[in-house]
């Protein structure tokens, strides 16, 4: 945001402008940039997902729209969804039904504000960035519950209940897993956490044994957090038809879709900035001339690819097994991890 403010002043726009107007304008620009990035990024991930799924399943995926490997397929889909009829189920709770997709998308979108794409390439460098990101991404579950309840469909309600139980449960190991790193760096600011990993590859948090356990817990919990296979219980198309978004059509459905893919990127980006060295390549000499956002985005895209890869390989868990993994495995494990790290810190100093 500061960068935008600076740009605006340099361009001469700031003359005769009140400071609050200037910062408001900068805010709008920053928000617009993020929104555009989220939408385009999500579309790219949808296309990637379809291509990766295709190759995993020995077929091609989209091939026609846009001449080269169906690159414009997502845009064609978006246009199709825009033109579709907006169907309301009879007796749907109109308010909740309408607000749900917006909540889901907003939750995903808000988290983008704190993602550190580079040293000074961040929407808002908040001191509680990590906490903020977790908080906003749990807004998604509100949307899920609203969608399930508002649809007036029993299967959707099942999806919503599962979603609520799952996301709320998995937030605990997710938060506990990153705590050792936070303890070590002493900050919740995502930029500072990434900054702490400057230097050679082994200074990444991933290569610390304690943090590695954290990383594994984080990665698996984040799959549950964004409802991906093997934890895609809220939507389980073979059990709950499509779960909470069964009744949605057109753009409302598109918002759920965009929200899901944006969320995938958010959890990956947090993992990158906390564990995988943020925007650093791991070789100090290379860092000087490689653009930081490129490194950051590439790393995040790789983690998104891992999520896609898992989705098309694994079956899904049952709801009680899901809860078992969370409450009986991950939470004790992450607590123990946190305790051991604290013990080492207090002894070594």
């Amino acid at each position, binding site marked *: 945001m500061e960068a935008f403010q600076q740009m605006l002043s340099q361009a001469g726009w700031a003359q005769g402008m009140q400071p609050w107007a200037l910062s408001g304008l900068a805010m709008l620009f920053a928000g617009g940039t993020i929104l555009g990035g989220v939408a385009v990024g999500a579309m790219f991930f949808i296309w990637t997902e379809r291509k990766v*799924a295709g190759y*995993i*399943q*020995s*077929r091609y995926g989209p091939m026609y729209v846009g001449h080269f490997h169906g690159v414009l397929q997502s845009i064609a889909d978006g246009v199709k969804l825009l033109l579709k009829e907006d169907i309301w189920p009879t007796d749907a709770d109109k308010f909740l039904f309408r607000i749900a997709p917006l909540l889901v998308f907003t939750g995903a979108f808000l988290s983008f504000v704190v993602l550190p794409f580079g040293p000074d390439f961040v929407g808002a460098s908040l001191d509680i960035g990590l906490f903020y990101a977790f908080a906003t991404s749990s807004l998604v579950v509100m949307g899920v519950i609203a969608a399930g309840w508002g649809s007036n469909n*029993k*299967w959707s309600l*099942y999806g919503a209940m599962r979603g609520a139980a799952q996301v709320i449960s998995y937030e605990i190991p997710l938060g506990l897993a990153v705590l050792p790193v936070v303890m070590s760096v002493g900050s919740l600011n995502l930029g500072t956490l990434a900054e702490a990993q400057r230097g050679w590859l082994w200074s990444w948090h991933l290569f610390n044994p304690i943090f590695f356990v954290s990383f594994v817990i984080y990665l698996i919990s984040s799959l549950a957090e964004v409802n991906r*296979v*093997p934890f*895609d219980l809220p939507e*389980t*198309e*073979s*059990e*709950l*038809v499509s779960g909470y978004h069964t009744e949605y059509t057109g753009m409302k459905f598109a918002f759920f879709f965009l929200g899901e893919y944006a969320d995938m990127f958010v959890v990956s980006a947090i993992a990158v900035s906390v564990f995988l060295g943020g925007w650093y390549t791991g070789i100090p000499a290379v860092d000087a001339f490689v653009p930081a956002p490129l490194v950051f985005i590439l790393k995040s895209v790789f983690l998104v690819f891992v999520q896609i890869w898992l989705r*098309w*390989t*694994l*079956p*899904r*868990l*049952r*709801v*009680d*097994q899901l809860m078992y993994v969370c409450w009986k495995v991950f939470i004790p494990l992450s607590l123990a991890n946190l305790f051991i790290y604290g013990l080492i810190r207090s002894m070594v100093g």
Partner: protein
Amino acid sequence: MILPKLQHAPASRPGDRARTMKSELLHINMGPQHPSTHGVLRLFITTDGEVVHSVTPYIGYLHRCAEKKAEGNTYHQYIVYTDRMDYLSAMNSNWGYCMAVEKLMEINGMGVEIPEYAEYVRVIIAELNRIASHLIAFGTYGLDIGAMTPFFHALREREAILNIFEKVCGARLMYSYYVVGGVKWDIPPDALEEIELFVKLFPDKLREYNELLTTNKIFVERTANVGVIDEDLAVAYGCTGPVLRGAGVKWDLRKDQGYSIYDRFDFEIPVGGGDMGTVGDCWDRYWVRMLEMEQSLAIVEQALQQMPREGEIMAEMPRRLKIPNSEVFFRSECPKGELGFYILSDGGDVPFRCKVRSPAFHNLHVIEEVGAGQMISDLVATVGSLDLVLGEIDR
């Protein structure tokens, strides 16, 4: 339909807390349009949260009066209707019906001698169809559990079989290839080569499936100890095929009744042994199907070796088949289980009555007993493991 009266779920454990936390049963229709009911099966379930209290299957959405139609069609004309019963293994249904008619003729002294060559062709094609049917069972079971990729891999191999069938009889789903007295056409040489190639390549693919799904930890967790149909239950409900064999009962009509030329081949009857959990759980039924594919492949391989180079494909048959008043009930081992045809003739050229005993119909009944008390996800897994085809249940 009259809904059962809504009642409070019994408290799970005695105590104040359980008594004050009242939960109501929820009535849900699973199907007839539902992704995991494999067609138009409608399961009426009452649930208490995630736990299923009772399951009632309602059928009839695909009823086409197939049995009644037999009374207006000649013995030969009825073959096309057997295609539409178990449409995933139409060859086996065709064969079962043709053998029933042949048996009826034999009873009346009109015995037809099926040429040896034709018998081999029948066995090879039927076993290939069994593999194709089990591939669909394997693939869709993966879908039910949430793994999508195995389905595409299974369809890829099924495609090879369908290509063979297309060369053999021109059709890919509704074959009507078997006729009373033999088969309709000879296997063309290039199709024979393709079968040989398939036999050579398929074991590798089976290994791939086992790596991808069978031994997957999550898959085992989802299917082992789930939907247990033990020996007594399976026998009491008249379950047959992989459902019965999954329960540990060694019963296969190809050996125990010994029709056609199955006594010439060396093959095993795989039974469920509770390798991953209890005998007769979903994993066992699934595993029996995987093993059966191997055995079918072995039969095809042996048949290809023993088969005479060429020969008659059809016995001498009367132009108009008229069978004196008599009855027959003939069962054959289809991929889903025992398919039985009861035919009553009255001297005309059409059957007086034709009753079909379809395996999936009897396998489905057991869901009422097994489904109650499971979780919704387990119910999906159990229904999937029964490998139902609604075309056969409703007829």
